């Protein structure tokens, strides 16, 4: 069984926001809710770098750990999903997440936030696969159709890779070897655990 992961190659990201647009369009995400965003560091000066950020579907997901109603679950593919029928919009997950992934559709009086929304790795939610109910709450279920997330598929420079962790780690390793730099993958240590000294990264091949 594949272990799904995202990887963003900061040497390649050109801040085109194609991933953001693909996500919005694929899942019909409303204005103001950003399942994915591009963050640029040192904007406008030499050394400027951008990365595309969304839910990383962590191995040991902090959101799952803190949720008081236990609305999160993990699929066989390692994708972290949640049940909007259970979610009470408390926002704990937002504070726990190192990537700022959880989004809330409202900002009403008394801290009313509405049901949490986040990247599903284009894998829908607990409803029956590829149904109208599932789409309305969670957006597209591309994995059920045998497709990978729209954001990574749309990426014009293939900076953003989404898929089986082993496969994308191999692609990245080949790039690092060829260009001789950039072995640090932003966010991987946080999301998927740092490798113990002298051992290969989790999910990576030796």
């Amino acid at each position, binding site marked *: 069984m594949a272990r799904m992961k995202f990887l963003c190659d900061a040497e390649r990201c050109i*801040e*085109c*926001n194609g991933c*953001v*647009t693909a996500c*919005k*369009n694929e899942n019909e995400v409303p*204005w*103001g809710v950003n399942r994915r965003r591009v963050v640029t560091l040192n*904007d*406008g*000066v030499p050394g400027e770098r951008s990365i595309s950020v969304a839910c990383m579907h962590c191995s040991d997901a902090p959101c799952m750990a803190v949720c008081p109603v236990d609305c999160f679950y993990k699929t066989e593919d390692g994708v972290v999903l949640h049940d909007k029928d259970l979610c009470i919009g408390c926002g704990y997950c937002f504070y726990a997440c190192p990537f700022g992934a959880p989004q809330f559709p409202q900002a009403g009086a008394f801290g009313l936030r509405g049901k949490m929304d986040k990247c599903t790795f284009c894998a829908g939610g607990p409803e029956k696969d590829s149904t109208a109910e599932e789409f309305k709450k969670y957006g597209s279920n591309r994995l059920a159709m045998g497709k990978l997330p729209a954001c990574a598929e749309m990426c014009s420079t293939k900076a953003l890779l989404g898929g089986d962790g082993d496969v994308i780690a191999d692609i990245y390793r080949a790039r690092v070897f060829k260009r001789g730099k950039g072995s640090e993958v932003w966010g991987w240590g946080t999301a998927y655990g740092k490798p113990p000294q002298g051992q290969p990264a989790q999910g990576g091949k030796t």
Partner: protein
Amino acid sequence: MDKVREDVLKKWTPEEVERVAGVPPEQMKRVAEMFAKNRPSSIIWCMGQTQHTIGNAMVRASCILQLALGNIGVSGGGANIYRGHDNVQGATDVGPNPDSLPGYYGIAPGSFAHWARVWNVDLKWLQGRYAPGMMSKAGITVSRWIDGVMEKNENIDQESNLRGVVYWGHAPNSQSRGLEMKKAMDKLDLLVVVDPYPSATAAMAAMPGEPADLNKNRDVYLLPAATQFETSGSVTASNRSIQWREKVINPLFEAKPDQTIMYLLAEKLGFADQLVGKRDGKQNIQVANGEPVIEDILRELNRGTWTIGYSGQSPERLKAHMRNLHVFDVKTLRAKGGVDKETGYKLDGDYFGLPWPCWGNAALKHPGTPNLYNTHLHVMDGGGNFRANFGVERDGENLLAEDGSHSKGADITTGYPEFDHVFLKKLGWWDELTDEEKKEAEGKNWKTDLSGGIIRVVMKNHGCYPFGNAKARAVVWNFPDGVPQHREPLYGIRADLVDKYPTHDDKRAFWRLPTLFKSVQEKYKDIGKEFPIILTSGRLTEYEGGGEETRSNPWLAELQQDAFVEINPRSANDRGIRNGDYVWVRTPSGARLKVKALVTERVGADHAFIPFHFSGWWQGKDMLPFYPEGAAPIVRGEAVNTATTYGYDSVTMMQETKTTVCQIEKA
């Protein structure tokens, strides 16, 4: 090339480059070495080089640099001008310019005779449509239509002023001098907008201007046009590859495809038959359900556009390419084997999209040309050489290629002029034409022989190039500056450079209009004291062109919600401006733009940048009430070109949007 080298070495010492352009000698040296030691390399630009008073010189300088480095005619090299929209190249090729018929044939009487034959239209009828002397006289460019309306009649080089304007898929906010454009719009008798969106033109026209400018009898029409998803047809990319695009949905609401709108207009105006080439029992373009058949339109173009080899890309070949994308190599663009299941067409050897020139007719099966001027390949393999377009000799110098310089396998191993019936007979190749071809080719050259026979014999039988084999031209003697020269812009902040690098003299009649250079520059020589920041403009990733369509798309609109000016921290701090503040940007045009400040090191302390995709605000006011109901884009903002100033390229008349001056104040 020697003249160019001499001129550049004499004038442009590293110190002088730094003084004028601000590029330090070490940086210049590093860049020069990078180019010299890494070949091939490609230079890519968009409008940053072209939209200046010296745009033509900058573009030629880039081409000359690439020639000097040997980066032309090789894979990975080239001087690449990227187009801003998906079919700008295709639109240019079919001849929207006021000095040319389709395929860059020009507007000489012979060009009209050629196209009248292709169009199956009576040449006498065509001639009758023009006022005496106007048929072969280059018209007013789109950049200057406002002057065609407003210039005093005695100053313009045509009988009457412009009275009507049709905006067909064109954004007014991509053109400079917005304040004057609004006045011109109000003075017109007729204004037509053909577009999927009413566009900023509709709102600008509806917005009240000065009462004295308004022509009370003006009529404004909005004709909804189909988007690319609602029609099919060919589309040409920047690399000259052509793709066939299929219709995805039927046109929504009242929208119609462009070709249908053209046909309906022609019907009303009484030349529908001529539009589709219906005469003497023949009809070039069939009409189905009121829509001219798009395949037939391309076939007609194929039959006439020999100049740039737009002749071999039949709809059948293009469609076969689209059905078999997988057989093309993504690096070389070339098909390895492959047979189209539907038609049996063999794809082997074709370059994807048959990048022009794809010479001769479709039956010649030329594969297209992925890199121009590549002498390393046979001409039937996509090879070629420089064109003999400027005569054979000048000032005693041979302009044709020297001995041994020719495309691979050519029968003629030295320079040669372009081919015509006389040259073919002299070479003894005439009898290789079929009888049918001979009948058509007699008295013609390769560009006007509708049989394609001359091209077939020259290329297939003898490996030569139809347009001759010559040297590239570095010094363009018929341009104002044969060797490209730097000249200061009309509005600048460096009065100290104007004496040494003055602009051109004013021109009395240039594309039918008086065009000012030196008188503007002299008048505003010290304008930098009041407007000390250079203002330039350009694009964003999120929006396209004038932006009306993309700013109406919620996914894109959310990403860029405000028009902004990029300003350096030093200039911002001196002016009490913080990131995100509203500011007023003023220019010598008198316009004031209210935009947000984006404080960034991306621009220097004497520079500011505003993206040009915004419209829908006019000097601080939202134009929402002036859009047709429900048709306003989600995001509206100041158009930078409301404030850009006078200035036009000395050859092409391209508007100068990339350089003016401004002052910025906290709002």
